[in-house]
């Protein structure tokens, strides 16, 4: 009686072995490191590796190792001081086209990494960093989209000789069009419905002395607009976060109108906010072909022109007068030109912009048109040992292309080097015409010292609570208590292994969840042991007591754990960030405790007591 089959033991040993394997990486310390990634057109390659290692050698900075990954280069150092020194050196040697981020790289040994074992991901409250929740102003996105139709509506009505009085924004949203009389209104309605499929046109009976129409974006279009606004903002935020030089940033959509930005390790929130909130615009200007750009570089800038630099660094002279700004761009998409097979970017302008564009390009066919990307950036630089905030306006000519014909509402930019460049240009054009304002509605910043504090305190309380329970169990249940303690220790290992395997984020509430599971995991064993004691009191033999103790306690344990799991799942689905962490560890803890408290202890009990005559049980 009370014997486990070999396969059950093998199963237990296998699971425990896997648990230990995946929990192991957490024991290794992390290396301070630099993570170098390319921004823009450049790439991280062996060449970069060579460049960086030469620069570090020249500066006399020792590093542990250097490794080229898929998209980035990781250099490990022995301590944080060297890491910081190296950052300055590397930044100087690589220049603007690369971003250098401070990071803590996991020092998982290769043989472990081969199994895919990685340490747990530490949450911002443990490693320090910034969490922003940003709201995209969707009303503004929609009203901006509607505004674009205003001028289009005016011109189409005028062209078709429909007499309207005014077109204004309605307070309740939509565009209000006042007509001279009902006849004009009716023909206006048919005209608008024919021309603008995206608009919903309704009659307004309100002010009965006037004939009015209300034009609103169709539900479908509104949703599209909002989706686009969100995507554009996420793209822009990505680009800016890259500039910040943050390792492992998280930029994620949350709900329909929000974006979560998490920047581990960032402490200067002021800088982060400024860069995330930087505004970017676009300008179209004609290239000044009459003067040589080199003269301007030497200091002789012609009146009426302004000196710019292209992205590669070549100087270019542009006319001072702005032809068009980025506000007029509705959309920009990259693609392949059907005729030439070359990569291109198709730009769509709004009505007003199209008119200006066509007027300006009519007389300038054959000349070059430049697109200038302007970004207002705030940078923190060190001056005389002090950190100074510097506002900087970056103006960069991203493209200068020859005008082939008179341009209108939709036109193409060709002559791009690669499809990658076309994509980047389309992205910049869209980003420049930032579709909707975005603002911070939630911020959680944890300084680095507090993060370390939280780790220390969290682990301390887990260890102390754990030790207290171990002592109590050993004293109260003797041999069985020791068996339960083995199970409890395994439970802890399994939770850590599961968290590492899922690459779940460990937060402070997550640690609290682990502590709570430690307390509750014992419950299953208490239930079993009390049941065994009861059976013995009722005069049953020790073997029979063990058997029925486990048997009878099982359904109770299952019921109790399932109900707790329900509560944990609800927590998970409603909770945000930190609460989710708590729910995750609680659920994992419940599941793994079912295995350790029932199967593992039974296996040990059977191993010790099974298959022999017993007179007494030490319980």
């Amino acid at each position, binding site marked *: 009686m009370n014997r486990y089959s070999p396969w059950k033991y093998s199963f237990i040993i296998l699971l425990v072995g896997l648990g230990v394997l995946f929990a192991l990486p957490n024991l290794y310390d992390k290396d301070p490191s630099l993570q170098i990634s390319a921004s823009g057109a450049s790439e991280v390659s062996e060449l970069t590796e060579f460049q960086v290692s030469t620069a570090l050698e020249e500066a006399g900075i020792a590093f542990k190792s250097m490794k080229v990954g898929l998209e980035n280069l990781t250099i490990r150092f022995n301590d944080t001081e060297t890491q910081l020194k190296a950052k300055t050196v590397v930044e100087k040697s690589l220049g603007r086209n690369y971003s250098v981020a401070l990071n803590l790289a996991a020092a998982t040994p290769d043989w472990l990494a081969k199994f895919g074992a990685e340490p747990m991901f530490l949450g911002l409250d443990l490693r320090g960093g910034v969490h922003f929740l940003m*709201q995209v102003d969707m009303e503004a996105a929609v009203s901006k989209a509607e505004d674009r139709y205003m001028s289009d509506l005016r011109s189409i009505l005028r062209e078709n000789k429909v007499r309207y009085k005014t077109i204004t924004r309605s307070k309740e949203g939509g565009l209000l069009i006042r007509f001279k009389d009902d006849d004009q209104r009716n023909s206006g309605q048919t005209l608008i419905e024919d021309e603008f499929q995206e608009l919903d046109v309704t009659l307004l009976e309100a002010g009965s002395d006037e004939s009015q129409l209300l034009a609103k974006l169709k539900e479908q279009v509104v949703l599209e607009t909002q989706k686009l606004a969100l995507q554009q903002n996420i793209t822009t935020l990505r680009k800016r976060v890259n500039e910040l030089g943050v390792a492992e940033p998280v930029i994620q959509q949350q709900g329909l109108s929000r974006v979560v930005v998490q920047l581990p390790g960032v*402490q200067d929130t*002021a800088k982060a*906010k400024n860069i995330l909130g930087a505004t970017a615009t676009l300008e179209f200007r004609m290239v000044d072909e009459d003067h040589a750009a080199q003269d301007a570089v030497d200091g002789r800038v012609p009146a009426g022109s302004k000196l710019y630099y292209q992205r590669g660094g070549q100087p270019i002279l542009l006319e001072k007068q702005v032809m068009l700004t980025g506000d007029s761009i509705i959309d920009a998409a990259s693609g392949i030109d059907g005729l030439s097979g070359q990569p291109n970017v198709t730009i769509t302008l709004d009505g007003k912009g199209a008119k200006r564009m066509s007027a300006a390009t009519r007389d300038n066919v054959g000349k070059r048109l430049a697109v200038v990307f302007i970004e207002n950036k705030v940078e923190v630089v060190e001056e005389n040992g002090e950190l100074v905030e510097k506002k900087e306006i970056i103006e960069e000519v991203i493209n200068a292309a020859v005008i082939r014909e008179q341009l209108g509402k939709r036109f193409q930019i060709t002559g791009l080097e690669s499809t990658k460049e076309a994509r980047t240009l389309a992205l910049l054009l869209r980003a420049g015409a930032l579709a909707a304002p975005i603002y*911070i*509605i*939630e*911020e*959680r*910043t*944890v*300084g680095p*010292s*507090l993060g370390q*504090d939280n780790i220390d*305190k*969290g682990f301390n*309380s887990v260890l*102390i*609570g754990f030790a*207290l*329970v171990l002592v*109590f*169990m050993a004293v109260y249940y003797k041999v069985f208590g020791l068996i339960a303690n083995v199970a409890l220790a395994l439970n802890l290992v399994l939770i850590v292994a599961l968290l590492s395997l899922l690459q779940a984020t460990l937060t402070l*509430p997550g640690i*609290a969840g682990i*502590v*709570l599971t*430690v*307390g*509750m995991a*014992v*419950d299953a064993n*208490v239930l079993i042991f*009390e049941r065994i*004691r*009861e059976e013995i*009191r*009722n005069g049953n033999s020790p073997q029979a007591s063990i058997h029925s103790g486990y048997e*009878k306690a099982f*359904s*109770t344990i299952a*019921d*109790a754990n399932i*109900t*707790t799991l*329900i*509560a*944990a799942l*609800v*927590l998970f*689905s*409603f*909770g*945000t960030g*930190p*609460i989710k962490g*708590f*729910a995750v560890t*609680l659920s994992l803890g419940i599941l793994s405790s079912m295995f350790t408290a029932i199967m593992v202890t039974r296996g040990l009990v059977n191993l010790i007591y099974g298959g022999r005559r017993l007179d007494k049980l030490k319980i």
Partner: protein
Amino acid sequence: MEMQKTRFNFDFMSKRKIGLVVSSLLIIMSIISMSLEGLTFGIDFTGGTLIEVGYSESVNLDTIRTSLSNSEFKDAIIQYFGSANDVLIRIPPSEGLNNADISNKILSLLEGAGANIEMRRIEFVGPQVGEELKDDGGLAMIYALMGIFIYVALRFQRRFAVGAIAALVHDVLITLGIFSITHFDFDLTVLAAILAVIGYSLNDTIVVFDRVRENFHKVREATSVEIFNVSLNQTLSRTLVTSLTTLLVLAALFIFGGEIIHSFATALIIGVLIGTYSSIFVASPVTLALGITREDLMPVQKEGADLDTMP
């Protein structure tokens, strides 16, 4: 067959009237306090800004108050956090201020006063987000209770489900009441703790109910009151041992877990104590008062038997 021997032999059910009075008093006090005083919501729910600053040496709060009093942050609430080196500054949400800038301004004001400070934590929650978190929290509580009700009703019987939910509502109300009376901060982690309390207290209740069900099947010549009494006594040592081990780890969390986790641990300790009490003096009496009998549990058994014989 004789009733099983038990280590304890308390007559819990004869004292259920006393339990009723105690629980009612506690619940009434909680409701009164919550309607008069409300809960001291943390910025998670009210919105606003919270800044934790670490000083290199102990600092006088009045100095900080003076340096902030001449600024636009006159309404700031300033208090120590854990030690005299650590200060917590709270700024209520306000219309005129650019929320994202508040923390930067305050930090530079404090630095300007010549102190050597270190930013430890900044939390800013927009009023709209706070409102949503409150709604979501309430919804979470309701959904958790609903899910549990359905599970218990299916696994046991409707009357048991009512008893279990009564105990849970009892626990939640009294824990909230204690937070209201003591003016402890009620933030997101406390909400999580209360949901964990729901899970824990339910654990206790289910263990008792499981035994009640078993005894109804096994012991034929006993009244319902006797069955509940025996079941409570049989599970009592388990109830006490589990509460004790859970309280041991919670005490460790409370003492060594640091300030941030304090209110979380407090809520759980209160909840575990009340949950242990309620599984004896609320869940069982309510189920009993609803007139649970042996016959109520028979159909469940039949269904189970039918299922077993299915191929």
